[in-house]
């Protein structure tokens, strides 16, 4: 009696070595291409799935959608905050008529938010330009009080 392995080997080595005919190849490929084209045409002609359905179908799409929502939210927040702050600065600078007003804490804080240390430096330079040349011995109090008048 043959062991199991011998039977398995016997079957394995006698795998039918079959080749398809040209007619079969042509018929199968032609019909397959037709079926493929029909599916593609039907898909493009038919209604497209809604965005919500596309998102719910794939986990990757869910993550992408979540990321897109976060990015949009952050962008909106920045856009919303940015102009109001900049608008605020413009407003303060427009309202501020004297160097003492320009150098208030509020105006300097906004300048810092807007441009960091460089923003404060620019603000200071602007105030000094308005003040013009002053004697070196003058105190800060006299400098700003004097400019008010």
């Amino acid at each position: 009696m043959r062991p199991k392995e011998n039977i398995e080997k016997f079957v394995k080595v006698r795998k039918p070595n079959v080749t398809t005919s040209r007619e079969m190849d042509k018929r199968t490929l032609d019909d397959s291409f037709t079926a493929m084209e029909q599916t593609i045409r039907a898909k493009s002609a038919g209604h497209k799935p809604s965005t919500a359905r596309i998102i719910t179908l794939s986990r990757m799409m869910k993550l992408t959608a979540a990321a897109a929502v976060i990015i949009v939210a952050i962008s909106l927040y920045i856009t919303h905050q940015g102009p109001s702050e900049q608008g605020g600065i413009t407003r303060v600078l427009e309202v501020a008529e004297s160097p003492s007003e320009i150098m208030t804490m509020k105006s300097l804080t906004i300048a810092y938010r807007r441009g960091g240390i460089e923003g404060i430096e620019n603000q200071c330079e602007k105030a000094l330009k308005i003040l013009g040349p002053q004697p070196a011995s003058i105190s800060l109090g006299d400098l700003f009080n004097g400019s008010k008048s």
Partner: protein
Amino acid sequence: MVEDNILVWKFNRGSKDALRRIYEKYKDDLLGLAITLLRDRSLAEDVVHDVFVSFAGAVGTFHLSGTLKGYLSTCVANSARDRNRLQSGRDAGPDVVEAAGSHSDGPMERAIGREESGQLQDLLAQLPYEQREVIVLHLHHGMRFREIAKALGISINTVQSRYRYGLDKLRSILNSVVTK
């Protein structure tokens, strides 16, 4: 495997060339499987044809979870089972033995190949369809018992017992042939 994944990716994007390459790659194996299961070349050709047409119709939505060969073999096996139910009782045609043997071999090799393959076909034909199916999918198409069980919708124990009983029966048939 990677090549198959690339082919499937291209196929899903509507590449006819990818579909052609998939067909060229697996057509002979699938036809061999269908012939072994159905014992009728023209029926086997129809099965392979239908499987590929159906596969082509799934363009854009086809999702490959295992191997492409395993998927296509399963489709052929399932389609062949349906045909076998319809054609039950029908004997093997003479074209089965004729089908075996590669056209690329020499005349002598082809003759030996035909004889050996034909011998196996005759032996396998004596097995119940379910046992033949499991043996061929496992030994000729390299599918694991787990894959076969999943593909056929039966338990792995059933697959293993069909395989074991099938081999036992083949062995006893061979022994009886030898003793004659």
